[in-house]
């Protein structure tokens, strides 16, 4: 299928081109947009690209890290300062997909993909967007809720706070095929401990709703408590609350609801 390819040197020009053409899509690593082209997606008539170096910048030091939207998972795995993001980055695709797929593209990846975004959601990330209106930062949760309406905007970067300690951040992707396979469910938890109690609990789930979501009931069960067996049990019991998983080839919605609490318990207790 033939489409028009527009390549720009700056992200603002690319954003302008995106916002003025509703059949335009931004090409990052290609794992979503080229796939749509190969499948003959007729809603796509223009491909927009930008060679802006700012899009591939990583700022890995300091308490708040920033990843350009065009940063690949392979590059994250090469950054020692980003060790807390290595497990989610490694859980994506095989080596070729990790050399191609980007942080920005992952925000748009539908189920059963988008695992890296689950980790970012648990870390309270902020998404920097550029649209016809200029640029702005929005919380990742708000971005995901309005993802379908973000077609005309360009993601510039994602930033998040580094976990307070390596033990405070947990991530796991449940897949049938190892080491590579689509997500049955994906879980990420950030549980900062202050004075022996959890302060600011975040539990994020993938493949449990049309987009990645926070498990608010489980977060409430954890907040202000110490991370003991009874607290974990309460969080596990509440894990499926507010979720709306779908059936797909990897699993039924029923099975996802059944296992989400089991895997949350294992994740929080550090069990295999």
């Amino acid at each position: 299928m033939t489409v028009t390819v527009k390549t720009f040197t700056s992200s603002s020009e690319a954003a302008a081109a995106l916002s003025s053409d509703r059949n335009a899509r931004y090409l990052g690593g290609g794992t979503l947009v080229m796939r749509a082209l190969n499948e003959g997606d007729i809603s796509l008539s223009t491909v927009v690209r930008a060679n802006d170096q700012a899009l591939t910048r990583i700022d890995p030091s300091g308490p708040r890290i920033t990843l350009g939207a065009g940063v690949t998972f392979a590059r994250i795995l090469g950054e020692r300062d980003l060790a807390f993001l290595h497990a989610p980055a490694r859980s994506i695709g095989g080596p070729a997909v990790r050399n191609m797929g980007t942080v920005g593209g992952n925000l748009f990846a539908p189920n059963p993909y988008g695992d890296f975004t689950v980790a970012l959601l648990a870390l309270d990330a902020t998404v920097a967007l550029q649209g016809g209106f200029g640029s702005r930062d929005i919380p990742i949760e708000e971005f995901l809720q309005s993802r379908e309406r973000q077609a005309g905007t360009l993601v510039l970067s994602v930033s998040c706070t580094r976990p307070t300690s390596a033990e405070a951040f947990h991530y796991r992707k449940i897949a049938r095929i190892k080491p590579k396979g689509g997500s049955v469910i994906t879980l990420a938890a950030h549980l900062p401990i202050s004075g022996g109690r959890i302060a600011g609990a975040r539990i994020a789930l993938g493949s449990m709703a049309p987009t990645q979501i926070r498990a608010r009931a489980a977060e409430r069960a954890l907040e202000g408590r110490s991370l003991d067996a009874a607290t974990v049990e309460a969080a596990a019991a509440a894990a499926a609350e507010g979720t709306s998983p779908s059936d797909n080839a990897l699993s039924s919605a029923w099975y996802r609801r059944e296992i989400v609490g089991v895997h949350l318990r294992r994740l929080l207790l550090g069990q295999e």
Partner: protein
Amino acid sequence: MAKTALQFRHNSSDVAIFVDGGTNLLVALRELIGDMTPKFGCGQGGCGTCSVLIDGELHLSCLTLAETVAGRSVETLDSLKQGPNLHPLQRAFAENFAAQCGYCTPGMLMAAKALLDRNPSPSRAEVVEAISGNICRCTGYEPIINAILAASGDRASA
């Protein structure tokens, strides 16, 4: 629609072609350059048989917009040939019965080359990880893993 001129390094030669907007690298290699070694499998990034090296990095050619390789180096399975001799990886695949129907083999060999170029003596777990993006429906993977380990041993002893 206007075509875009595209020049890049293909194995050991410079090539110049004209591509339509949206053409993927796999189509450019097979239909415009005539290099039939990368295969079309799924077109979705799930099977890995179209794998090539771009500037030494493993990429899926079916998900690569052809014009993004302008000025870069693309290596396909065709680059492994050394006159009448098989590349050590190809020889190891033959000796370990790592190819049955052969459709995944071009991608498996490129994924293996990407691994051994970076890590000449990988562990078994590293081999499994390196080919995790490549699907084989015949062998059950064991012969392929053994072949890559054997090739790495040959390199080490050479």
